[in-house]
């Protein structure tokens, strides 16, 4: 019969030799192996202080982007909500009033924009669907919460801080692991 793996070995059924029946040599060998592990490097990452770097394509929490002048890009077109396979996104649109041009880039903007992070599967389809480059998946992840309600992220949680006025908050929201 053809072997399924190259690592398979035939079971040896020959009677044990005296040294084997004594167990002791094998036990000492085993103890030598465990002892050598004392000097091995620990692969442990001590989590809150140390973090593993995410891969460059990591898809984490969403951020709602701003344009170069710090205005919100989202125009509440709803394409992300349509694209979302988990139906995690809801939004309410509102019309931009005169005098709000420095806040919103388009005439229509999202007054309410919510993503339920418990439903979201972090597939990134919203990011692909958005015609305005308004939504991106960052390199952070949703921290634990006590209630389900706490996982419904609104605009306060997601609109990225302005790079110019709050570079620190911006970097944190972007969540590049090199900043941790």
């Amino acid at each position, binding site marked *: 019969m053809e072997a399924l793996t190259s690592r398979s070995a035939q079971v040896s059924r020959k009677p044990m030799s005296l040294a084997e029946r004594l167990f002791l040599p094998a*036990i000492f060998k*085993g*103890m030598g*192996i*465990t*002892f050598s*592990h*004392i000097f*091995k*490097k*620990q*692969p*442990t990452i*001590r989590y809150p202080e140390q973090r593993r770097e995410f891969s460059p394509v990591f898809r984490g929490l969403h951020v709602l982007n701003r344009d170069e002048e710090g205005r919100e890009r989202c125009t509440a077109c709803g394409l992300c909500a349509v694209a979302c396979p988990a139906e995690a996104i809801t939004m309410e649109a509102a019309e931009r009033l005169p005098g709000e041009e420095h806040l919103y880039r388009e005439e229509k903007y999202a007054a309410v924009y919510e993503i339920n992070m418990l439903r979201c599967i972090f597939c990134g389809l919203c990011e692909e669907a958005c015609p305005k480059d308004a939504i991106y998946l960052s390199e952070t992840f949703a921290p634990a919460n006590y209630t389900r309600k706490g996982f419904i992220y609104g605009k306060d949680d997601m609109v990225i801080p302005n790079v110019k006025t709050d570079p620190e908050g911006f970097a944190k929201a972007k969540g590049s692991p090199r900043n941790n």
Partner: protein
Amino acid sequence: MTLLVLDWLLIIEKLVLIAIIVFASLGIALYTTFAERKVAAILQDRPGPERAGPFGLFQPFADGLKLIMKEEITPNSSNKTLFILGPGLAMTAALMTCAVIPWGASVQLFGRTIDLQIADVNIGILYIFGVVSLGVYGIMIGGWASNNKFSLMAALRGASQAISYELAMGIALIALLMTTGSLSLKTIVEQQMAPGHLWNIAYQPIGFLLFFICAMAECNRTPFDLPEAENELNFGYHQEYSSMKLGFYLFSEYVNMIMSSAVMASLYFGGYDIPFFNEALLPQNIAALVGVGALLIKIVIFIFIFMWIRWTIPRFRYDQLMNLGWKSLIPIALVNMLITGAWILAKL
């Protein structure tokens, strides 16, 4: 009036000694649990507990607090008296052993010579054997009173294991006693300290190996932890126990480990003897204290070996355990005894 004849100072001295030794044993046992986790972790390339306090040193207190705060559950169908008696007995038996172990030579204090041994019984070894056998009742009663088939099975396993291995242990010990000619631990230690006399391990290497294996079995340590057998008996005899009653069982295991390490160190490794050093060169009190330190170091080394073995070897199957005990250890112990006898005769 007869009371006045008693040496009250002696009683006070002994009580203080008992308190010190019992609390020291408990303290060491506390940190043995910590060491166990640390050693396990390091042998498995992990850091182990390190969050509670510096280097995780407060971990045992956190564990203890957790155990105390847990709900105390007594199963409805259990035998209430025996259920409580079980862990108490296990703990008492574990602690009682420390009475005859010579922890050090004598010190001079307030003009009195104080022996660092609670009782120099002239049949110390027999006393230890008796008490260790009592320890089986802790397991038996606990398993029986739980009214749970896993516990009962574990208790039966524990009892038969302890009885089987006590036999080999006893025979291995007889060979040692034939060479020492004394049952008192103090005398045995002093013999090994005498100039020109090596530690008993040199005269009884096989006996020591047997004794060590049996001691491991008596302490229910892996590879002989069949009464516990997490993965087949759901933690065995203390399955129904919770809170501090469980804590007592777990703790008594560690105390047992310390005591058997102390016994082994005294019997085969010169007890409080400092190797390659003549204690008579130091002032008496300092020599005694250094001796206590030497004994403690020996105990720590033994405990480390216990742990090291635990995290190396898997558990025996039950039939393998019995085969090893009855078909290998006891014959080897008997042969060892005969050889020792012949050797003594040849020397005469």
